[in-house]
Structure formats: structure tokens, C-alpha cells
């Protein structure tokens, strides 16, 4: 009974090897892992968002370097470098087979946890938070690596658990609980990075939800996260103020509510068509972090309602593409990876923009692709690269979902026969 895809890392390569020679026959299952052209629209949409970010960072360059001895193009040059490295990361990630990712996942996870802890001790302190490690001339944000590691690790673990029929077991709950606990201690606690912690929580909860964790258990995980969140908020004066500010930003526009108020002013003053590319005033000292956390507001000021809805629309197109890839992914593992990337990008985008629109408290988190910052760009491009790779194997004809189709079930049921490794799935 139940779901029965049964391949492990080695089975994927064998499947792929098989798919090259396995031409589709009339009446044969659509769920076969056959390689085809990847979904280039992913690259186009991500590229458009990167370009918008680069243009905005370039346009506000003088405001960022004002009062420093840096050249006006210092930040846009660094941003272009980051985009170049992100594209390289994308190209590499797009070529790495998923079984290699599977094989590397434990190493990546260990490295991520190591850096996430190390950053507390060797990291650069900015505004009381330890988030960056200086390596040579680059600063590396450990949280971005943790997000990638979490996506890979959760996809692997949850696939295995699902195959083993352990999704509803206590051990799965304990495992997820341990992950939540780790994120709270390391990311929210040691790094004071509540924004990234929220994204990671969403990854854990969201991927578990997609992987079929019983709703009762999801509520337990959600309850733990909620309690942890409340503790996190109430334990810090800074966060209490942020929440109070969020609840009533106008009360204190001059002090704690300043950034929230200025974000709304920035967005609202953009109007329908915006002030124009070079006409942002709010970037000149009024709105904090104009290139990073607040870049969406600056974009909205420059390009108005037209521009800001285009940005939101581009994200939506991207999310929809990833969703379609996840939906028609041939394996549970691939689907969970694509889902994880979808969760990562969408939750981060939602937290960032919602804060700029006064719908959520400020978190201090970047807008994927658009915000200034090398680490974020490189890692989201790697994530997109992985999804791009997955898009080569999607079942183009399946729209409604593999497991629900009797034909698909039939075909997946046949999958183990391609498994030459001899690993047998436990069957219900």
C-alpha cells in the first residue's frame, strides 16, 4: 500500500542511464525519468530579477558611497561580481547530478552547522548580530549555506522516511524537533538572525507538510515553533520593540518605528509610475539599508506601482515555474528539493516585502536575487541551478500529480525494476 518510490542515490543515476535509451512507447507511462530540455524560463526570470537588483544598486550607488572614500560604482561592481559568481554557481549546480547532492548532503550539513556555530566566534559583528565570516575580501553569510543544507538534508531524510513509511512515527517528529531546536539555538540564538531562522522554520515545517507529515504532527511542530518564537521575541528588548513598532508604527516614527515608517513613505511616494531610476531621494539617508533589506521599497519608489507589481509578478512567475517543476518531478526526492527551494525563496521574499509594506515586522532579511549581497545571490542561484537540473526530468504530460494517476502509480510501481543496485524498498 501507499506510496512506493524506492530509489536511493545510486538508483537515480541508473534510472537516468536507463532513460537515455528508454524512448517513450505508445501507452507507456509518462512518469519515466527521461531527460529533456530544461526549463530555461527559470533562468530568464531569475536573470530579470538579478538585473533589476543590479540596476537599482547601480542607481543608488552615490547614496551608498556618500561620505566614504569608495567610488560611486563600488557596490554595483561588487554586485555584478556576485551575479557573475551566482551564474557560475548556477551552471555548476545545474550539472551536478542529484545523486551527488545526495551523497554530499551529510558533508554540506556538517559544514553548514560548523560555519553557523563558528560565525558566533570568528564572525564580524554588525549591529549586535554575528552573521558574516570574512574570507579574504569576501564576507560569507553562513545562514545562506544552512538554508541550502537544510533543503538537501530534509529532502533526503523525508524521502527516506516516506519510503520507509515512517512519516507519522514519533522518530520523524523527534528528528524535525531536533532540526527546529538546532535552528533556534544556532541561528536565532547565537546569530540573532531571526529572519533566516523564520525561513528555516518554514523550510522544516513546509517540507514536512509536503512530505506528508500528519496534520496533527505538523500542529505539534508548529506549536513548538510558535512557542519558540514567542520566547525569542519576549526574551529580547530589541525584538519586543520591533513587534510593538510593527503593531503601531506611526506611534514612533522618529525612533524605533523610523525604518517601518520610512519604508511606507518610500513605497507610497513612488506613485503609479515612480520617480524614475535616478530620482530616488529616500535612498539618501532616509530609508536605512536601501540596497539590502529595503531594496524593494527603493525599487517601488523609482518605478512606482507598475514597477513594483512587475517585481512581484516576476517572483510569482518564478514560484509558479518551481511549483510546476515540483509538481511534475518524477521522484519524491526531486519534488521535495524543488519544494524546499520554493519555500526558501517564497518565504524569504514574503517576509522581506511584507515588512516593506507594513504587513509584518522588520526582520533584516534580503530579497532573493534583488538585494545587494554576494552570499545570498550565489546560494539562491545554486538552488535555482538544482531546480533547473530537476526540470530536465519532469514529466511534461503530468499536470495533476504523479501518485494520483493510476497510470503513474503503475509506472512508479515498476520503478524498482530499474533499480539495478538491488536495494529493495520496504513495502507496505
Amino acid at each position, binding site marked *: 500500500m501507499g506510496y512506493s518510490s524506492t530509489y536511493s542515490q545510486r538508483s537515480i543515476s541508473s534510472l537516468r542511464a536507463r532513460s537515455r535509451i528508454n524512448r517513450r512507447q505508445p501507452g507507456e507511462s509518462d512518469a519515466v525519468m527521461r531527460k529533456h530540455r530544461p526549463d530555461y524560463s527559470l533562468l530568464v526570470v531569475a536573470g530579470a530579477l538579478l538585473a533589476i537588483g543590479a540596476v537599482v544598486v547601480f542607481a543608488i550607488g552615490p547614496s551608498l558611497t556618500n561620505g566614504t572614500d569608495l567610488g560611486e560604482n563600488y557596490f554595483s561592481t561588487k554586485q555584478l561580481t556576485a551575479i557573475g559568481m551566482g551564474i557560475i554557481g548556477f551552471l555548476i549546480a545545474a550539472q551536478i547530478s542529484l545523486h551527488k547532492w545526495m551523497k554530499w548532503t551529510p558533508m554540506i550539513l556538517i559544514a553548514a552547522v560548523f560555519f553557523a556555530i563558528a560565525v558566533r566566534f570568528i564572525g564580524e559583528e554588525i549591529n549586535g548580530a554575528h552573521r558574516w565570516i570574512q574570507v579574504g575580501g569576501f564576507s560569507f553569510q553562513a545562514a545562506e549555506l544552512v538554508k541550502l543544507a537544510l533543503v538537501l538534508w530534509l529532502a533526503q531524510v523525508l524521502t527516506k522516511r516516506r519510503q520507509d513509511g515512517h512519516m507519522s512515527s514519533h522518530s520523524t517528529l523527534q528528528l524535525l524537533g531536533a532540526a527546529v531546536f538546532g535552528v533556534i539555538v544556532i541561528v536565532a540564538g547565537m546569530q540573532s538572525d531571526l529572519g533566516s531562522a523564520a525561513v528555516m522554520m518554514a523550510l522544516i515545517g513546509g517540507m514536512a507538510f509536503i512530505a506528508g507529515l500528519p496534520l496533527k504532527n505538523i500542529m505539534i511542530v508548529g506549536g513548538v515553533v510558535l512557542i519558540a518564537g514567542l520566547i525569542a521575541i519576549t526574551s529580547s528588548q530589541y525584538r519586543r520593540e520591533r513587534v510593538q513598532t510593527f503593531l503601531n508604527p506611526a506611534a514612533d516614527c522618529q525612533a524605533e518605528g523610523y525604518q517601518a515608517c520610512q519604508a511606507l513613505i518610500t513605497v507610497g511616494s513612488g506613485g503609479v509610475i515612480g520617480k524614475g531610476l535616478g530620482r530616488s531621494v529616500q535612498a*539618501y539617508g532616509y530609508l536605512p539599508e536601501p540596497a539590502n533589506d529595503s531594496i524593494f521599497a527603493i525599487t517601488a519608489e523609482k518605478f512606482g506601482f507598475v514597477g513594483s*507589481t512587475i517585481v512581484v509578478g516576476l517572483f510569482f512567475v518564478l514560484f509558479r515555474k518551481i511549483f510546476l517543476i515540483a509538481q511534475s518531478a518524477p521522484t519524491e526526492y526531486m519534488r521535495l528539493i524543488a519544494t524546499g527551494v520554493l519555500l526558501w525563496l517564497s518565504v524569504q521574499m514574503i517576509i522581506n516585502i511584507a515588512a516593506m509594506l507594513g504587513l509584518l515586522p522588520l526582520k533584516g532579511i534580503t530579497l532573493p536575487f534583488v538585494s545587494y549581497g554576494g552570499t545570498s545571490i550565489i546560494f539562491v542561484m545554486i538552488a535555482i541551478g538544482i531546480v533547473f537540473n530537476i526540470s530536465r526530468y519532469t514529466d511534461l504530460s503530468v499536470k495533476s500529480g504523479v501518485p494520483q494517476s493510476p497510470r503513474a502509480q503503475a509506472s512508479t510501481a515498476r520503478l524498482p525494476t530499474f533499480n539495478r543496485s538491488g536495494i529493495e524498498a520496504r513495502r507496505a
Partner: protein
Amino acid sequence: MNDSPRLPSSVSRLKALYLFVAFIMIVFAVRLFYLQVIRHGYYDAQAKASQLKQYELPADRGELYAYDGGEIVPLVLNESRYRIVADPELVTDPEKAALELSEVLKIPAGELEELLTREGTRYVPLAQKQTKETREAVAALGLPGIFTNEKQPQRVYIQGSIAGQLLGFVNDAGEGQYGIEENLNDRLNGEPGLLRALTDQNNVPLLATGDNVQQDPVDGETVVLTIDVSMQRQIEAILEKGLKDAQSESGSLIVLDANSGAVRAMANYPSYDPAAFTKVEDAALFQNAAVSSPLEPGSIMKTLTVAAALDSGSVTPDQSYFDPGFFTVDGATVRNVVESSGSGTRTLADILRLSLNTGATWLLRQMGGGELNQQGRETWHRYMTEHYQLGKRTGIEQGPPNEELGTEAQGIIPDPTDGYGLNIRFANTSFGQGMTATPLQMAAAVTAAVNGGTYYRPTLVAGTIDADGNFSEKQPDIVKNDVVSDDVSAELRRLMENVVANNNRTVLREGFQIGGKTGTAEIANPAGGYYEDRYNGTYVGFVGGDTPEYVVIVRANEPKAPGYAGSIAGRPIFTATANALLDNFNVSRKSN
């Protein structure tokens, strides 16, 4: 675990997730529409309120120049000073900032810390008018929230602390106070420009947009004063010494150009240093007493009485009369001073030489056809007010230009037709009592009487220098050119020379024309009548070659040294002044 229930479909949950994300995107679009389209006006106004700033672009205040001989030299110039200002909200470490600033600004750290932590304001001036060096030292500290860009104009007095009351000063708000600075404030200040611009948060204007407006300031005029700085310096010293010698505590001294009304020097004692105006405790010291403080001038008035009687044809130059030594008028007695008392036949020259009050009264009677009557009073009144311009302000450029608020006094000339005891009152005016005038009014009137009959409006402004450095000279303003006739003027000069020749031989110089007249003026008691023992000493005189070149007036308040005030205080100061003028200021010699 083998019989675990069928797990929910991952794809249906994936769809639920996707729909949730799609829903949020719609929420964002709606929210953006609300913020950017519906509420755009509100947020745009909020943005403009903080971004759009209006500045006054200060105009440079005009500088003051003056003469030194024939040369135009700087007198009052500008120097850029800086106000050090704090924005307490941006100051991160007030204690440390206060300590560091304390060393540079020489202000106690505690005081600074109180200013740096002040609440409810974002603009706290810490120190005024700091030099460029101090400003740079403060900027070098790199303290957040401390600003040093605000310029403050500072007047510097190139010639030292001369002519304090005449110049006035410029207060911290950039407004001229007293003297020339206040009178010419609008001309000196120019028109400030206007800059309206979108700025960054540090108020630095950003790129030009449609909202930016710039209007250049019009700098103030550079004004050349009529005074001669060397003469001013010398007569200030002469006045101070002369007053001390006569044991007088205060007084004034004016040198007028006899042929243009230009004030060449105008001194008061005591004076003050305009560069240190904040140290002055008594604001009365700011007043230029030479124009603001009228007095009963005393016998120097007789020069004008003689000229009026001659010019009106009431007497002839060679006419003599019998002086009984006193007159009884309206029940009061007009007497002379002790030395000249006694009766006898007197000439016009005797009236001035012996300073006969009875003689002046006789002149007034002649103006009435031989008796004190309305005709005589009206003739004399007409001369005083319409010919000599007494009883009205000269319009000298001092203090507020508004006549109502003006510091210049107009003096009092009694009405010839209205009131009781008019004859004794007018008899008094004929020798300088019962009426008042400022030293400047008297100097200008006597100038007109001796220079051939032209009343020039007294002035301190010689002209202006434009931006290219071209000097445009102001033409003398002739108020009346037939104050007295040429002949009368010549006769008066001769009479005044005679006074000097008889009474003040120390000042006689070969080849020069020097005339003068003392005055010992009784001081009116506010309770009625005159003080028995208090007098002001005055003197009016001129020096020149064939014609007068300078007219000098002296006022010494209540000298305590024994003797007649005019003789012991007025005369020596005039003598010293005349000598200084003849020695140092190129007075022409007589041609024959």
C-alpha cells in the same frame, strides 16, 4: 509501521502551498495598489515634508570703508566665522563627545554634555562665531551629530576701536544695531537668495529636480563713509584729554566739511569698542550723543543771531547801540556774565567778543523794528527753523532709519505766537537758552552761516563701491542755498575771527582763517528754572584759508574745573582740534 495509514498526497499539499503563495502575491499587489495609487498623495506629502528643504542663501554683508587723507581705506570688513551646532538625536556618545569638544571649544565638558543630551530638539548651538581653525579642529574629531557648516558673518574692525557709536555693531542675528550699521542695515545686508531643494538626510541638496529653486543672493552694498580715520583717531584723543583736563565726564566733538556737509570726524566720550559690544553694560553707551542728545547750546547761538539780524536787514555791520547792561523783559531780567557787565556803546563785534546776552536780545529787538514783538519773534523763528534747519532732524545716517524710532533728536524751538512769556522766551533763544539742538544741528547751521549761506545736509556716507571696485560718489545734498547772503557770511566770519583774535590767541596761525565762539550753557532743571552751578561748555569754530574748510563743534558736559565752561572746556578742545586740522589735514592757506 507496515500498516501505516495512507499518507496524504504530497502533490495536493504542494498545490495548497502554491495557492497560499499565490494568495500572498495577490495581497501584495492589492497592498501596493493601496500604498502607491490610493495613498500616494499622503505618502508623497510625507516624503516631501522631510526631503524638501528651503534655505536662505545669505548675502554677504556690505563692508564699510572710509578715508585716510585722499585715500579710501577699509574700516569694517567681514570675516567668516562658524557656528558649532549639535543634533542631540545623532550624537552617539555624549559624554565622550563633550570631553573632546571641551578641549577644542574651551567650554566646560559638563555644560556641553547638558547641551548634547538636550531632548525635544534637533538643533542646539554649542558655540558661536568660531574661527576657521576651531571649526576645522571640531570637524576633525569626526563626531556624529556635530555640525560646523553654519557660517556666521563677523565684523572685523581694521582701524581698531575708533568711532564706536558712529559705526554701531552687527548682532549675532546679523542685524545692524545703532549707528551706521543699523541705519544702512537693509543696504548693507542685501537680499538673501533662496534655495529650495530635495536633500539627503544631512540636508545636502540632491540633483536638480523640478522642485529645486535657486535664487542667487544680492550682496550688500560696500559703503564709503565720509570720515577720515586719522582725523577721527586724533579728535577722539583730543576730546578725551580735553574733557579730563576740564574735569568733564562726557562730551562730543564733530568736524564737518564746511563745503559739503560731510562729517569728517564725530567723536563721543566715553565710547566703546564695537568688536566687543557684548561687554558693554549700559546700553546708553551705544547712543551717538553727538546726534541723539540735544542741549541748550548757549552763547554759540549768538553767531546765528548776528547772522540772522544782518541777513534780515535788521542791523548793519557797522551799527552800534547803547547797552544798558541788562534788560527787563516780561518781568525777568536778561543779564550778562560778570566780566562783560556794565553799560556802554557796543558793536556787533562786541556782542560776540564779550558774549553779550543783552546784545543778542538787542539783535532780536532790531528784528522786530526796535522792540521785542511778534514780528521779531517770527523773523528769528523763521531763521532758526527755515534757514538754520533747527528743530528738525538733519537726517544723519545714524540708528533706525524710521523717523519715529530714530535715535536722532530734533531739538525744540519754541513757537513764536503761542504761549505766555514769549518775549523773554525768545530773548533767551537769541543767546542759546530756552531752546535745544544737537551738536550736529548746531555745527550744520553754523557751517551754512559761514560758508556763504549753503546748508548742506550733514552726512556720513560719501558713496558706494560696486562689485567691480568702482567708487560712485554721492553728491552733497543742498537743503537751502540762501541761509544767509555771501556778504553776511563773510561778515560773520570776520566777527568770529575777531573773537579768536581777542580771546583765543593761542590758536592764531599765520596764513589761516580761524574763527570761533564759546558757549557756557545753563542747564535746565527739570523741576523748573536752571541749575545755579551746572553748565555745559560748548564751542563752535572754523578753520580755513580764504574760505572755511572745516567747522568744529565741541560739547563738554558739566566740566568741574573752575571758570566758565565754554572757556575752560570748549575752547581748549577747539584749539587742539584746530591745530591738528591745520597740521595734518591739508587746510588751504589764504591766497594773499
